[in-house]
């Protein structure tokens, strides 16, 4: 498969976090933590806007990752793609109103035989997200498995 040269491919995109999107996200998860939804409560803590939950990172990283998935070398793999592992390191909290800049880079790509003898491919993507103050918000490693035919 002609994906050998995807290592080093890099994609960037911005995402502005809205309070409405945070509310939609936590509602789906049934998460009632007031740090996400109660403006007055959060204002009383430090005067700022509501927080995004940690795995909201999947959303602000998504525009950069989407550019990867739309890449012609990658898009044909997407139907056989499953999420193997995910790792986050969090810096400054992400909050409503923040403008997050994310770069996503393919750092690894190799073949791996699974327990049942199928030849899978493993792709690792690293993302780095900073906010409008150039503060590091999150770095992440996505380990994706492309299931063999």
């Amino acid at each position: 498969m002609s994906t050998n040269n995807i290592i080093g491919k890099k994609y960037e995109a911005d995402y502005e976090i809205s309070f409405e999107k945070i509310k939609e996200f936590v509602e789906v998860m049934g998460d009632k933590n007031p740090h996400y939804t109660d403006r007055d409560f959060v204002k009383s803590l430090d005067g700022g806007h509501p927080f995004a939950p940690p795995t909201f990172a999947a959303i602000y990283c998504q525009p950069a990752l989407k550019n990867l998935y739309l890449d012609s070398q990658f898009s044909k793999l997407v139907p056989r793609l499953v999420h193997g592992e995910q790792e986050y390191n969090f810096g400054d909290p992400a909050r409503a109103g923040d403008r997050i800049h994310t770069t996503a880079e393919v750092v690894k790509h190799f073949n791996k035989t699974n327990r049942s003898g199928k030849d899978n491919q493993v792709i690792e993507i690293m993302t780095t997200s900073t906010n409008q103050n150039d503060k590091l918000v999150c770095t992440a490693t996505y380990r994706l498995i492309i299931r063999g035919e």
Partner: protein
Amino acid sequence: MPYFYAGASLDFNLIHIDREFAQANGLPDIILQGMCTMGLTAKHIIKNDHPSKVETFKVRFLNPVLPGDELNFESEMNNAEIDIEVTNQNGNRVLRGKATTR
């Protein structure tokens, strides 16, 4: 839930929302987005605390989560480290992870 999470998370991979497509690609049914399971696990860890308490969070997805599955979250805290395991109603592990807190 995969439909609603797709809308909220922008993850519209058809294996999460189109049963025929998922089965044509070798899956038993549509599967829940791994990031949704991870998000539910984060909710279990944080509860109503400040979300910044989570400094690092790492998971491995072990088995797909299917429609109708019931998930059970178990965590064990050792100092600032939390080990987490999520199982389905059949006792199969779907996620194993580790978080550090500050």
